[in-house]
């Protein structure tokens, strides 16, 4: 049964897979995580604000992003970002944005909705007394958030933020629908060129499994170490 499989193809293409594919996947993941957490935190603060239009907008945005599939959002932004770029730079024609930048925008804005829910739970987990004490000391809203509430919120939510980041890493494989050469795309290209689908897809699954398995175990150990006994 395993006789007709040529696992040598993995050895021959491993340089390409990791140099081109994995670097793309990791770049996209890191950019989306940082952008997503920044936007997500802002969205969470908007959602918790007393200013009704702001909280309504943030709520609608988060609910919209959580109701539609990521594949659809990828297609949306692939076509929409050139028009937005044209509007920003006042060009009559849609701006040429490559698939890479449109997917960075997609993943940042999509994951911001999920990070928003996590940060909202985090901000609400910091006791009200902290914010009250900060205001009593004369801090304004931004100082309270930056110096008192958000650091504690981040620490509380760090394991869940990291778990969401591992899920983001897995979801970057969906840029396959734009024919981008991420790790899965690279494996797929080699598989289709050499006719070795079984070997390459199994190898890709194995690599993703090892990375995510190790990642989630590190997160579990971190969770045990920073658990605050209340």
């Amino acid at each position, binding site marked *: 049964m395993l006789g007709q499989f040529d696992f040598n193809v993995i050895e021959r293409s491993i340089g390409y897979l990791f140099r081109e594919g994995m670097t793309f996947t990791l770049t996209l993941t890191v950019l989306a995580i940082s952008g997503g957490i920044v936007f997500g935190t802002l969205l969470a603060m908007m959602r918790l604000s007393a200013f009704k239009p702001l909280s309504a907008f943030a709520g609608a945005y988060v609910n919209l992003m959580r109701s*539609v599939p990521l594949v*659809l959002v990828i297609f949306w932004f692939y*076509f929409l970002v050139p028009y937005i770029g044209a509007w920003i730079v006042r060009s009559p024609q849609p701006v040429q944005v490559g698939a890479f930048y449109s997917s960075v925008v997609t993943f940042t804005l999509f994951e911001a909705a*999920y990070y928003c829910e996590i940060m909202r739970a985090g901000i609400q987990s910091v006791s009200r007394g902290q914010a009250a004490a900060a205001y009593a000391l004369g801090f304004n809203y931004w100082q309270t958030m930056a110096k008192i509430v958000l650091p504690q919120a981040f620490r509380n939510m760090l394991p869940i933020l990291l778990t969401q980041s591992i*899920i983001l890493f897995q979801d970057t*494989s969906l840029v396959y629908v734009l024919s981008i050469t991420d790790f899965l795309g690279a494996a797929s290209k080699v598989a289709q060129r050499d006719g070795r689908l079984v070997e390459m897809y199994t190898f890709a699954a194995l690599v993703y499994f090892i990375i995510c398995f190790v990642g989630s175990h590190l997160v579990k150990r971190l969770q045990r170490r920073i658990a605050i006994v209340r």
Partner: protein
Amino acid sequence: MNYHWNWHIYWEASPDGPTYIHTLLVGLGWTLATALAAWVLALLLGSLLGVMRTTPSKWAVRIGNAYVELFRNIPLLVQMFLWFFVLPEVVPRALGAAIKQMPPPWGSYVPAVLCLGFFTAARVAEQVRAGIQALPRGQNMAGTALGLTLPQTYRFVLLPMAYRIILPPLTSEFMNIIKNSSVALTIGLVELTAAARSMQEFSFQVFEAFTAATLIYLLVNVVVVLGMRVVESRVSVPGFIGRVKIEVAGH
């Protein structure tokens, strides 16, 4: 914006059906068919695994944990490719040939249902385990005291209450499976997102196509949430306010 809007496009003739709205609705049909079949599979398999992970047998727990770890750490798209491309090659030759000879919609539909079912079963197993572990330990002991065997305790005491506790997380898993069915477009299943894409490619009306798909997904979500609310109110046990806070990330 240099884009020509045409909201009448939905009622114009399309190359692969009477009108574009018809193509989109057929796509919606495939989305729902995939999601419902996969959901049934996920519920059955996931409940079995969740129960296995809470039994006193160490091996059952290990098998359950291994399954969940395996299916949660491989991306859904990679799993879809494994089911579609790799499975027919590693099973015995006759079965592999039979799988490859399945006619077009079923050739993509069956692997998509199996993939989504097994993927979601891992998540359902997590929810079921959390639901059972949220019950007080006295329930188990009371079952033993009444002379019930372990399967009977699960069937008559633990599972009825556990399912009521985890109805909200199960609702969001159901919505996730509807969204994840869009990944099946990569193996050739023409569900809603693929239908919107084909409408975009034939008519060049990009934003009309994707707006329709987005609105349809939102509508399906609203229907699911309202339906689950009805189910929740009908099966709720008066006085039992079981809310399990399952801190799971992601979608």
